[in-house]
């Protein structure tokens, strides 16, 4: 069986299983346009009414050139990045992030991830989010996956299939 066929079967199931996680594997990057709307919507959805996340004038008075994304939104985006990749059956166990260069409106943040360690059904993924001015976030996510991926015939609703990953699933590559 070629790696390409294996990959297709997994995609049919709509989720990755623990057996699919390998240390050193890179996750496809996720590009997040940092719009003013995202900054404000994220702050309000997280019940964070600190003026620096919605009022540019007051943000400037506090020494910031503009409003900036709050930490809860960054946390949510990092969590989404992991579950987007591993599928809806994946369970976040731990998310630890540190913020650096702020996410200001108009910028783009690119999230990248590398599986650092696999222990049974649990993987540790190092996540980095870079924007136009530097490193916005560094973090570590611990995620658990079902021990074996459900078969393609499963009647579980596992949602949309993850997009093929050209970096990690080269067509025809042997596994």
């Amino acid at each position, binding site marked *: 069986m070629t790696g390409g066929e294996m990959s297709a079967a997994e995609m049919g199931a709509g989720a990755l299983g623990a057996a699919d996680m390998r240390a050193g594997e890179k996750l496809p990057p996720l590009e997040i346009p940092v719009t003013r709307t995202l900054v404000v919507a994220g702050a309000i959805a997280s019940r964070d009414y600190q003026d*620096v996340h919605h009022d540019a004038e007051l943000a400037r008075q506090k020494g910031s050139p503009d409003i900036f994304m709050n930490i809860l939104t960054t946390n949510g985006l990092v969590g989404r990045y992991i579950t987007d990749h591993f599928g809806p059956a994946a369970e*976040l166990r731990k*998310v630890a992030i540190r913020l650096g260069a702020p996410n200001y409106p108009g910028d783009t943040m690119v999230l990248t991830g590398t599986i650092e360690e696999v222990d049974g059904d649990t993987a540790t993924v190092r996540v980095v989010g870079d924007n136009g001015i530097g490193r916005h976030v560094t973090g570590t996510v611990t995620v658990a996956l079902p021990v074996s991926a459900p078969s393609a015939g499963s009647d579980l609703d596992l949602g949309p299939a993850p997009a093929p990953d050209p970096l990690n699933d080269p067509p025809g590559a042997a596994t």
Partner: protein
Amino acid sequence: MTDELGARLKAYEGQDAAVAAEGKDPVNAPMIRHWCEAMGDTNPAYEGPDAKAPPTMLQVWTMGGLSGYAGGRTQAYDELLALLDEAGYTSVVATDCEQEYVRPLRPGDEITFDSVIESVSELKTTKLGTGYFVTTRMDIRVGPHLAGTHRFRILKYAPTRRRRQQKPALRPRPVVNRDNAGFWEGIEHHRLLIQHCTTCDTLRFPWLPGCNNCGGPDWTPVEASGDGTVYSYVVMHHPPFPAFDPPYAVALVELAEGVRMISNVVGVPYDKVRIGLPVRLEFQSYDDELVLPVFRALEEAG
């Protein structure tokens, strides 16, 4: 150098920040949906009858929102923040968040939380300004069951730029040199002096080493009467400069003696300055060291 404030802040380590505090709302589908919409998160695990909340929403359920915290926040934590505020560390930014998820939260769950002040750093200098890192650790429960833990680090800091702004900006100083020293000496004594060429009898302003008309180097000072009219003007809206408060009018005033000078028109709104407006010289003190000639409007232009 001993950090007296730092020592006072250290004393709060280990004290409770919140005890048996309650979430303002039960975990609920609308807030989950709003969150997922903002994050662009389409994970089906967060929808439907068996939905769970996104684990990264853990802190959201503990937030006070616009109306503030309902209760459970201790005096110790408020005191700690007040101490920092009073010392000028008024701004806050979150730097670290570490969450462990023990049990999924589902719509209908009512959370309670306890929080402890884990540590307070030494005084640190960052790009944003100097301040102290405060780390709290929170346990979030549903009934007796631990749902997750949340460690949060904030920087309470004095913004760098704001400190600069607290010192009122001063007007730029005039550049005084050999050629114009007599003029500024006159201003110091509240006299507006014009140069009078002793070779060709022409008045000249601003001050120059030679006559525009005949090139003669010899002159005597003549004191202006102080009467004038607005010959032309502009209104400055942008860009702003320190110590100037736009919009304001900058006028070219023609003195009764015939020479013209640039100054501010006072005593009239910027949008009421008009060509031909009669003005009268006065001397305005801007700070301990700076006096400048300005022109007061004698009547409002119609």
